[in-house]
C-alpha cells in the first residue's frame, strides 16, 4: 500500500439491510440509479429476447450492402446487406455475455485475493497486495493485446484475458471491507467457539461484503464490455461471433464512412454507450448507498484508477 490519505472502505458499523432491500432502496432514492436500471433492463430484455424479436435472420441478406434506413429496416443495413436491428440485438447479447463472463472471472480472482489478504493479514496480506500493486501498474490494454495476439482470437480467450486483468480494484475494495468485518465481535465470538476459517469466511464475512461485491461487479461489467470493444476494434475479436465492438470494426474496415453509411457505425456505438452508462450509474449509486465513505477514497491518487482511454477504472468517478 502506498499513498492513501484514508484507508478506503472502513466503515464503523453499517447496518446491513437485506440485499434486495439495498437494490430497491437505491433505485427508489436515486434518480441516476433508476435511470441506469431502466437502461440496463431494456438492453438486457432485448438481448435475451433476440431470437424471438429479431425481425430478420442473423445471416440473411435482405438488401444491398449499406442499404439506407427505411420503413422495413428502421436502422438500415450493414456491409453484408443484413438488417441492422437484428444484428444489434444479437450483438448486444454477445457483448453482455462477454461482459458478464469476464467479470465473473475477475470477481472470483479479486474476491479470493481480497478476502484472503484481509482475513489472514500479515505476510499473506503483504504478498497479495504487492502482486495487486503490480497488476495495477502494468498497462493492461497493451498486455491484453499482446496476449490476445499470441493466443489467437476466440471469445473464450478474450473473456479470460479481460478477466485476469480486471480483478485488482475488486481485490482492494474487498480487502478493506474484510479488514473491518474481521474485527467485529461476532467474528471473534465465532472464532472463540472454534469455527474454522472456511466457516467464518463463508458464514460471517462473505454475507457482510456481498452487497459491496455486487456494486463492484456492476462497475466491472462496464469496463469488461469496454475492453472487448477495444480488442475487437484492433482485429482481435472472435470473427465468428458478432459483438457490438466487432460491428464497429466491420463497418470501419469496410469503409462505411466513405460509403456514407453512418448508421453502421453510430448505432452500435450508441448501444455501447448506453450499456456502459447504465452500469456506471447503477454501480456508482449502489456503492454510494452501501459505503458513503468510499467516495473519499476515490480521490486518493492510488486507490483511484484512471480509465486508460480503454477499459478499467469505471469506479473512478
Amino acid at each position: 500500500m502506498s499513498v492513501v490519505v484514508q484507508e478506503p472502505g472502513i466503515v464503523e458499523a453499517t447496518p446491513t439491510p437485506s440485499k434486495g432491500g439495498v437494490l430497491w432502496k437505491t433505485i427508489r432514492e436515486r434518480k441516476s440509479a433508476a435511470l441506469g436500471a431502466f437502461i440496463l433492463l431494456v438492453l438486457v430484455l432485448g438481448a435475451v429476447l433476440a431470437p424471438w424479436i429479431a425481425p430478420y435472420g442473423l445471416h440473411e441478406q435482405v438488401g444491398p450492402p449499406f442499404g439506407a434506413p427505411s420503413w422495413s429496416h428502421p436502422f438500415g443495413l450493414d456491409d453484408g446487406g443484413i438488417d441492422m436491428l437484428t444484428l444489434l440485438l444479437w450483438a448486444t447479447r454477445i457483448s453482455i455475455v462477454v461482459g458478464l463472463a469476464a467479470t465473473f472471472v475477475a470477481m472470483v480472482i479479486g474476491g479470493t485475493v481480497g478476502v484472503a489478504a484481509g482475513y489472514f493479514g500479515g505476510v499473506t496480506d503483504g504478498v497479495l497486495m504487492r502482486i495487486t500493486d503490480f497488476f495495477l501498474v502494468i498497462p493492461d490494454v497493451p498486455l491484453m493485446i499482446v496476449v490476445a495476439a499470441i493466443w489467437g482470437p476466440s471469445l473464450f480467450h478474450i473473456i479470460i484475458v479481460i478477466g485476469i486483468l480486471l480483478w485488482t480494484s475488486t481485490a482492494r475494495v474487498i480487502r478493506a471491507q474484510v479488514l473491518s468485518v474481521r474485527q467485529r465481535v461476532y467474528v471473534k465470538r465465532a472464532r472463540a467457539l472454534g469455527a474454522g476459517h472456511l466457516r467464518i469466511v463463508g458464514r460471517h464475512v462473505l454475507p457482510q461484503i456481498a452487497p459491496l461485491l455486487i456494486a463492484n461487479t456492476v462497475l466491472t461489467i462496464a469496463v469488461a464490455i469496454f475492453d472487448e470493444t477495444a480488442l475487437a476494434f484492433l482485429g482481435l475479436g472472435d470473427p465468428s461471433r458478432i459483438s457490438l465492438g466487432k460491428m464497429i470494426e466491420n463497418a470501419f474496415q469496410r469503409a462505411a464512412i466513405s460509403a456514407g453509411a453512418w448508421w453502421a457505425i453510430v448505432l452500435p456505438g450508441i448501444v455501447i454507450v448506453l450499456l456502459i452508462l447504465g452500469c456506471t450509474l447503477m454501480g456508482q449509486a449502489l456503492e454510494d448507498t452501501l459505503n458513503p465513505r468510499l467516495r473519499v477514497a476515490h480521490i486518493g491518487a492510488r486507490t483511484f484508477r484512471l480509465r486508460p482511454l480503454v477499459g478499467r477504472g469505471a469506479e473512478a468517478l
Partner: protein
Amino acid sequence: MKGADYIVKRVLFAIVTVFVAVTINFVLFRLAPGNAVSNLSRVPHATPELRLAIRREFGLDKSKFQQYVIYLKQLGHGNLGISFQNQQPVSKNLRTELGNTVPMVLLGTVFAIILGTFVGVVAAWRRGTFIEGAGVSSALAFYAMPTHWLGLMLVILFAGTFPSGGMTNDFLINPTWWQHFKDVLDHMFLPALTLGLVLFGQYALIARSSMLETLGEDYILTARAKGLAPWAIVRKHALRNALLPITTLVALSLGYIVAGAILIETVFSWPGIGRAVYDAVLARDYPMLQGAFLILTVSVVFFNLVADLLYFKLDPRITT
C-alpha cells in the same frame, strides 16, 4: 528519515515492477506459436543442417535461462531486436514513432486538463444548479464513449473540414517550415480532440468530486464565516487543495494515455507508437510488439512513480 524511506520504497517497487514486466515480456513471446527456425526454414529443401544453423544463429540451442540472460544483456545495451516488417532495429522504429505520438498526446491532454478542471470546479461550486447537471451529464457521456468510436464520430462530423488520416499531406511539394508545421497541426486536430474529449470526461468528474470534498472542509466554513466573498473562497482556499489530487492524477494518467493512444492512432492512421502496436499485431511482428510493450510498460511505471512522489511532495498529511 521517513520521507527518504518512502522514496526509496517507491523507487524500489518501480524497479522491481519493470524487471517483472521484462520477464513477462520474455516468457510471453516464447509461448508464441512458431519461432525463428520454423519461420525461416520454410523454404523448399530445407535440410536439417540448415535448421541447425538457424537455431545456432538465433541462439535457440542454448538453454532457456541462458537465452533470458542474453535477452537482459541486450536490453541493457538498448537492443530491442530487429523488426520483421522493415528489417530496421526496433529501437530506431520506436524512437521515430514515439516522437510522433508525444506532441499529439500532449495537445489533447492539455486541452483536457484545462477544460476538465474548469468544468469540474464550476460544477462543484454551483452545486445543485442547471450548470452542474449539464457539466456532469456531458462529462459522463464522454466518459462512457469508446475512444475509437468517438474518433469515428468526429471524422463523420468534420469530414472535409479537417484531414481524417495520416500526419502530413503528401501533395505538399517542398513545403516551407511553416507550411509543414501548419499541415501537421491540421492533421493533429482530430486525434488530439478525440483524446482531449475522452480525458475531459474523466478529469471533469474527478475535479468535481475533489472540489466538493474540499468545499465540505471546516476551513471553508471558517472562511465563509469570516465573510469572504464566494469567489475568494474558491480561488484562495478551495481550489489549491482541490487541485492536489488532480495534479497527481494527471501525472498518473500520462503513462496510460500513451498506451491508450493505440485506438486513436489506429482510427486516424497517426504514425505513432499505438499505430505501431496495431501494425505489429496484424503482421505478427513479435520483436516490434515486444519492444512497444516494454516502452509502454516502462512509461506507465515511470509516471506512476512520478505521481507517487508528487503526491508525497504536495500533501504533507501523507504518511507511508
